[in-house]
């Protein structure tokens, strides 16, 4: 069965520091992988996605993620965090061959940014 694991429930970083949020997935075929962000009081917004090709993908707001098939991982990174990045981040996996656009979401990582 498909699943997504985000091992870090809560992370605190200082403003200007680098960030890496971990995501591991379980899926038998080629997955589609996504990172979404939820700012306080808002719905989710797509940060970036991986379908195929270059395993390093760039997203909005200066985020990037790297797909590593051997590790079943799709970690999100940002070289320098801004206070406005404080939010909850969700990794998701979708079925590459699926007929619908269903996603399986991880449990989320809540990011706090210290001044």
């Amino acid at each position, binding site marked *: 069965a498909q699943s997504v694991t985000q091992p870090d429930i809560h992370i605190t970083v200082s403003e200007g520091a680098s960030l890496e949020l971990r995501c591991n997935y379980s899926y038998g075929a080629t997955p*589609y992988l996504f990172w979404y962000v939820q700012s306080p009081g808002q719905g989710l917004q797509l940060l970036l996605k991986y379908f195929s090709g270059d395993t390093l993908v760039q997203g909005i707001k200066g985020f990037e993620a790297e797909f590593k098939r051997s590790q079943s991982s799709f970690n999100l990174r940002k070289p320098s965090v801004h206070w406005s990045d404080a939010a909850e981040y*969700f990794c998701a996996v979708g079925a590459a061959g699926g007929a619908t656009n269903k996603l399986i*979401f991880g449990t989320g990582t809540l990011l706090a940014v210290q001044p």
Partner: protein
Amino acid sequence: DVKVTQSSRYLVKRTGEKVFLECVQDMDHENMFWYRQDPGLGLRLIYFSYDVKMKEKGDIPEGYSVSREKKERFSLILESASTNQTSMYLCASSPTGKKGTQYFGPGTRLTVL
């Protein structure tokens, strides 16, 4: 920009009431979804619809039903609300051509007393 709107941001209902949560999207998307979001559990899919009048159960459909009479509108119905349905409810839509890319509404925080 794609816009997904939900009828209420906050809702308070009594146990046993019938509750309707409405979601409207303005981009002619074929697929629509209802999730509930609970702390520590992430987003869990309740129901989704891939066409008008078509619906499929998600991972936690018990206690819920849905209706999609028009392409732009997807309603979630709690036939008899219970306290364990107190949660944040998120609606999303997605075009068939953009695999997995979903556009979310702002959510409805439902409290059942």
